[in-house]
């Protein structure tokens, strides 16, 4: 494989990213608007010796990738809102048992079966708190196919680095739209491989005994070592424990391993942001409309910029606060009722200067939708 120019859907850009990162196991259940991911991997994985399984539902798909990951595979599943709801219990299990996996959610309108063929960004909070109990989680997103590719590779890398589920929050517009993608040569984008234990065969392996740097090397399940894996709070052997200090230490670890690394995990892009008086904070397909507007208004001398978030969870609050510190107003552009708005308001020094430009009717928010609100905020009328 060498650098390759393609004209593809966002869903295929995600597949290309996953293959580049070394995915070798996919289990899923097809659902609009994510189906092309399963379709393409069903063709591609067997060619490279990987496994594709269409399971009976989304719950089983999530459980299958968890099992496959434990045995040493790089794993992924893909779904949309209704399927993402079903996966939540098992996502919690992967958080608790610290099993690397990537879950793609190509968002459509919800709740319930909602608006299957139309765009939405309504699952932002579900990605954070869809599964119960305190836990850390990583969620990435992207607004164009080159970034879909890159964020998919990063998702696999972060999953291995932190032994955690990573959610890729794409949306229907990104998933189905076609545009240019350049797949880089192997080695150009760094790949993080599984950290495996150096404990030899027939020597006791402690699956949850951290090394000095805090990382937990894994042993392929079913291989050299016998160990226990559970969704219950557990000790360093993986056996259930309700010892208060074990419980407290593990829960703190699950949260801290993600939250204390927010700076490392944070990914974002700036568009016309230098000296911007008005800042649009956006992500995914709605960021394309924000960028379009900012570039147009710049030509007319207006100081408008875009802060594009590529990592949503852990929320990069400190970065957002710093970037927005000098803005006259911050407008969060998203296709939900203000899920990232809440985070931005909590992050900035002056939350009363944060506004929402949204659209929730299944249509992609347009540059003129945003411009209308911007003019009102600027006191210029519609």
């Amino acid at each position, binding site marked *: 494989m060498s650098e390759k*120019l*393609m*004209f593809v859907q966002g869903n295929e850009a995600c597949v290309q990213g996953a293959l580049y990162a070394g995915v070798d196991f996919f289990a899923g259940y097809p659902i609009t608007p994510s189906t092309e991911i399963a379709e393409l991997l069903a063709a591609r994985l067997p060619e490279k010796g990987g496994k594709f399984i269409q399971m009976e539902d989304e719950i089983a798909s999530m459980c299958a990738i968890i099992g496959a990951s434990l045995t040493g595979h790089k794993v992924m599943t893909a779904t949309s809102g209704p399927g993402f709801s079903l996966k939540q219990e098992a996502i919690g299990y992967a958080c608790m048992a610290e099993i690397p996996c990537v879950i793609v959610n190509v968002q459509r309108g919800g709740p319930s079966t909602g608006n*299957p*063929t*139309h765009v939405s960004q309504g699952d932002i909070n579900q990605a954070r708190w869809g599964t119960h109990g305190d836990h850390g989680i990583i969620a990435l997103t992207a607004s164009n196919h080159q970034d879909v590719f890159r964020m998919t590779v990063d998702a696999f890398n972060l999953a291995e680095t932190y032994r955690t589920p990573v959610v890729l929050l794409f949306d229907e*517009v990104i998933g*189905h*739209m*076609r*545009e*240019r993608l350049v797949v880089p040569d192997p080695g150009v984008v760094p790949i993080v491989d599984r950290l495996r234990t150096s404990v030899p065969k027939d020597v006791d392996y402690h699956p949850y005994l951290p090394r000095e740097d805090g990382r937990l090397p894994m042993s392929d399940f079913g291989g050299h070592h016998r160990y226990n894996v559970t969704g219950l709070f557990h000790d360093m052997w993986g056996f259930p424990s309700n010892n208060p200090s074990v419980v407290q230490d593990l829960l703190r670890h699950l949260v801290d391993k993600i939250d204390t690394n927010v700076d490392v995990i944070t990914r974002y892009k700036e568009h016309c942001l230098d000296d911007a008086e008005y800042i649009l904070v956006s992500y995914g397909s709605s960021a*394309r*409309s924000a*960028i*379009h507007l900012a*570039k147009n208004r710049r030509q007319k001398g207006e100081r408008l910029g875009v802060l594009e978030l590529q990592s949503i969870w852990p929320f990069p609050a400190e970065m957002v606060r710093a970037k927005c510190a000098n803005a006259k107003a911050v407008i969060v552009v998203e296709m939900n009722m203000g899920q990232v708005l809440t985070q931005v308001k909590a992050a900035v020094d002056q939350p009363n200067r944060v506004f929402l430009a949204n659209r929730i009717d299944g249509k*992609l928010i*347009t*540059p*003129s939708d945003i411009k209308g609100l911007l003019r009102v905020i600027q006191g210029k009328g519609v």
Partner: protein
Amino acid sequence: MKRVRLVFSGSGGQGVITAAIILAEAAVIVEGLNATQSQSYGAAARGGATRTDIIISEEEINFPGVTSPNILVCLTQEAYSQYASIIRPGGLLLTDSRSVKTAKKTDAKHIELPLYDTVMERIGKPIVYNITMLGALIGITSIVRPESVLEILKERIPPDFLAMNQRALDLGLVLGAQYRYTI
């Protein structure tokens, strides 16, 4: 050509989306331009109204939707009624004279061509209707080179069907070449 916005519309099964993908792919892969192609669709596919938005540009494309196209293609009466009004003033409207009866004047150059009838008469297979439409559009506008489209067709179409598609493309090119529209 800095930026051209196109809308292809018709009914499900006519191949307007495939034609859009082939055009945009030729622009990106062969001609080194930027392009986006998107479509909105409901739960039903075949027979329903279909619309696809294409932007071809020398520059980066952010917002991928087309609100007022430079070029609008309508292959059914329903599509014409629905979209004729959105065309950009001075734009190009291409319709099939067999299926679209134009009602009111739009501020656009309007070209009616017997695309379907010509395909059926000369090739006899409606499956290549979309390729003839694409050929006609290229004949009129030179939006991409015909060889670029041919290159994409060679990649996408099984060898046994390539000759028929090439004939359909040529048929469209000849029909379109009677007219000239500068983008």
